[in-house]
């Protein structure tokens, strides 16, 4: 078995009033795209800066390519970082930017010019070496920033929300490009983001981070379909969050009653005793709509609601319902067929969902913020 490119061992970093990184251990396999997903302030930037070497951990160890990074300065680590604002050097040309790291290694001018040009070609920027940085578009700059790091052939490339500054259209485009670049180069990427869609689309493995700890690690599919905690269920993808108490359990399905008296059924994660406070999560695409209650699947409990608002967004269109008994706001995805394109606000409609595809967790103090 090959050594993982990154091994983090019992890493701790405390600031004055809180633990930014709280006893974290994980490994990242060679050649994989690993994302750390979390809300702002969860400690992901601190973690990344410790891997890069800009912050010293209080305790624990970081090994890159099997070598401990204790007392190794950032300029001597086999790690490069793509910064949030890219941090391209405006006083240098594109070619000089890419060749900067090579020059620091004492490579001859012709050789580093040749390598920089070859690297620019690999990121589809052939011939841009003589341009100034501010002549490039946002996406091109992104590629220069990645080329500048990859030309050094690092063991690990760290990316600190590099798509955050781009507009939506370009972000969507760069997501695909980043994934293709990573596949082409085979370098291990460690990517941090607060955007769950970026993490899901790009990564082989995602760790969801909250309050300095990993809530769950797994493939994007695991996180989406098998969330391990209420935080993950609430943070990854859209979800209806229904807080209530368990009335009874049958097998692994619990009947949950909200304070307003609405009863829903959901699969339980872990042991949940009757009477316990829980949070149930139902994804908008799990629920089905019908104007006639008789057409809904017989085996699932039926609910009724009034259309509160229509959220048209092409393929992601949804409708916001107000459940009849509890006035609870419930989001249901509209089918792609356009069957409910004629829904009107205020209309009464029935919906149901498979309890096996909904999930409930014991309500913890750690609610998503």
């Amino acid at each position, binding site marked *: 078995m090959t050594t993982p490119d990154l091994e983090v061992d019992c890493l701790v970093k405390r600031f004055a009033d809180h633990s930014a990184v709280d006893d974290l251990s994980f490994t990242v396999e060679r050649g994989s795209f690993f994302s750390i997903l979390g809300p702002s302030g969860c400690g992901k930037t601190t973690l990344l800066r410790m891997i890069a070497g800009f912050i010293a951990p209080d305790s624990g160890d970081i090994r890159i390519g099997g070598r401990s990074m204790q007392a190794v300065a950032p300029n001597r680590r086999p*790690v490069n970082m793509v910064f949030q604002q890219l941090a391209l050097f405006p006083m240098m040309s594109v070619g000089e930017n890419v060749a900067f*790291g090579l020059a620091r290694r004492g490579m001859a001018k012709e050789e580093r010019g040749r390598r920089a040009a070859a690297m620019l070609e690999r990121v589809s920027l052939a011939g841009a070496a003589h341009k100034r940085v501010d002549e490039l578009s946002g996406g091109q700059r992104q590629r220069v920033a990645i080329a500048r790091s990859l030309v050094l052939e690092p063991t690990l490339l760290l990316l600190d929300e590099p798509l955050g500054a781009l507009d939506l259209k370009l972000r969507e485009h760069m997501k695909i490009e980043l994934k293709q670049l990573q596949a082409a180069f085979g370098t291990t990427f460690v990517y941090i983001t607060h955007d769950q869609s970026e993490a899901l689309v790009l990564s082989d493995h995602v760790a969801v981070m909250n309050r300095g700890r990993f809530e769950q690690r797994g493939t994007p599919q695991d996180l989406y379909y098998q969330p391990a905690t209420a935080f993950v269920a609430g943070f990854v993808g859209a979800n209806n969050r229904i807080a209530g108490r368990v009335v009874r359990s049958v097998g692994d399905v619990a009947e949950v009653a909200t304070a307003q008296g609405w009863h829903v059924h959901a699969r339980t994660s872990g042991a949940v005793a009757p009477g316990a406070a829980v949070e149930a999560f139902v994804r908008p695409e799990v629920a089905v709509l019908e104007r006639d209650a008789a057409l809904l699947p017989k085996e699932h409990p039926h609910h009724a609601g009034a259309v509160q608002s229509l959220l048209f967004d092409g393929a992601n269109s949804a409708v916001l319902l107000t459940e009849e008994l509890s006035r609870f706001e419930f989001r249901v995805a509209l089918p792609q067929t356009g069957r409910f394109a004629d829904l009107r606000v205020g209309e009464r409609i029935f919906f149901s969902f498979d309890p096996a595809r909904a999930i409930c967790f014991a309500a913890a103090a750690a609610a998503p913020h």
Partner: protein
Amino acid sequence: MASAPAQRLWQRRLVLTLLLAPALLWLFALIVLPHIDLALLSFRARSAPRHYQPSLNQYATFFAEPLYWHIFVRTALLSAAATALTLVIAFPIAWVITKVAQGRASALLFVVCLIPFWVSETVRALGWLILLRESGVLPALLVRLGITAVPVELLYHDATILTGLVYTSLLFMVVPLVSSLESLDNSLIEAAYDLGANGLAILRDIVIPHAAPGITAGCIVVFMLTLGNYLTPNLLGGKNSQWFTELIYTQFIVRFNWEQGAAFGFLLLALSTSMVALGLRLSGQRFVDVMRRS
């Protein structure tokens, strides 16, 4: 009849002219007019009482007399040295203010640089006299520590003049440096470090190119102030100071030879202009860019 847009344009021009008027008036009355008069003065010679004729005598005197030449070159070289020294001392100060100190500490440091300027230059120079004269604080301290056997005179050396000039000029270097270093994104420094650069390479390739307009602006201001300084070299250097402004003063006030003084004044102006032009040429910058960006 003028159309409405043309009238609006005319109104805007009028407002702009009125706003600029005080500055233009000041520039004309206090800078341009006296200089025209000085230029006329410097190019004439008295042939008989109250009779003058055009002449290059004053300039010829300057080039013929080695003492004038010597003082001219000495002033230029010492001013350049003072400017370089000020830059070397001000750069770390500006760096600490912008990149190391946080929040209030940074503001406090800036105020510390400013405080000496609350007292007049004369009083500051007198402060140096108290510290450095033979019976002053520093020579007494040196004797007490056993470094010198008897009190030494620390005034009236070139080093004393340089110290005084650097001290007087420091703020004028720190201010443009702080403003140019403030705009330097810290992530550029981190990125360079991350890509394998050490401190020296970061300074050479990232920090100095970014701060170049601020460095140039600070050097221009300090050089001009130093070159035209009269008080500090005179008080700290005494008879040995041999500063070019003292020659001008002597010609105007002591010798009452306004024509010669005016010629010296113009030579000093030519010196400062050509040195600044040379500095800009050497650092590859344009004056307009430097003044706008710093």
